């Protein structure tokens, strides 16, 4: 069964450093999403991406965040200068028709 994959599974970084989180969507999916879950809290929408552009972004998704699909397969989330409060689980999700499939997540720890 096809699945969404994410790398790395765990990333530890120093405050102020840049991180790139990677996602490989299911091959025929057209819609891509990033969500964030701070430990013990609910899952929050960050950004949606369709047809090589952002279709919607949340208030959390400020200028420190960016997304791209550089090679037609990987879907990346970049955080330019990480803050302590960026520590969270980051989930990629992809869909074809309304049903989103989630990757296993990347746990980001900012020290």
């Amino acid at each position, binding site marked *: 069964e096809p699945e969404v994959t994410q790398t790395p599974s765990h990333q530890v970084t120093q405050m102020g450093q840049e991180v790139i989180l990677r996602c490989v969507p299911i091959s025929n999916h057209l819609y891509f999403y990033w969500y964030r879950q701070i430990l013990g809290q*609910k*899952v929050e929408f960050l950004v*949606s991406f369709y047809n090589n552009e952002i279709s919607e972004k949340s208030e959390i998704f400020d200028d420190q965040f960016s997304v791209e699909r550089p090679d037609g397969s990987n879907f990346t989330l970049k955080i330019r200068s990480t803050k302590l409060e960026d520590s969270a689980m980051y989930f990629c999700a992809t869909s074809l028709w*309304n*049903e*989103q499939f989630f990757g296993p*997540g990347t746990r980001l720890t900012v020290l």
Partner: protein
Amino acid sequence: AQTVTQSQPEMSVQEAETVTLSCTYDTSENNYYLFWYKQPPSRQMILVIRQEAYKQQNAMENRFSVNFQKAAKSFSLKISDSQLGDTAMYFCAFMIKGGSEKLVFGKGTKLTVNP
């Protein structure tokens, strides 16, 4: 703005018993989807069941069924014959049809199935 409310932070049930998790939502939209996701300790998000708002018939997937009350904006999840592997966080989620189709999640209910 759409909101999803799960009023039960934690619940427990005995193995083989039935449990119902509550969810209410608020929207002025008429065309939307509702979902229940399971998040076990591994933190993987797993789709349990989905409901399309225009369908009056309640969705069912094996031991999982929903009670969808559109007028009351209620979407509860019933788990029958609970198994130890059902122990997880359960998140109710809402999606407006069309547009970006982002998911809006509730805060979750932690379900523990006791042997």
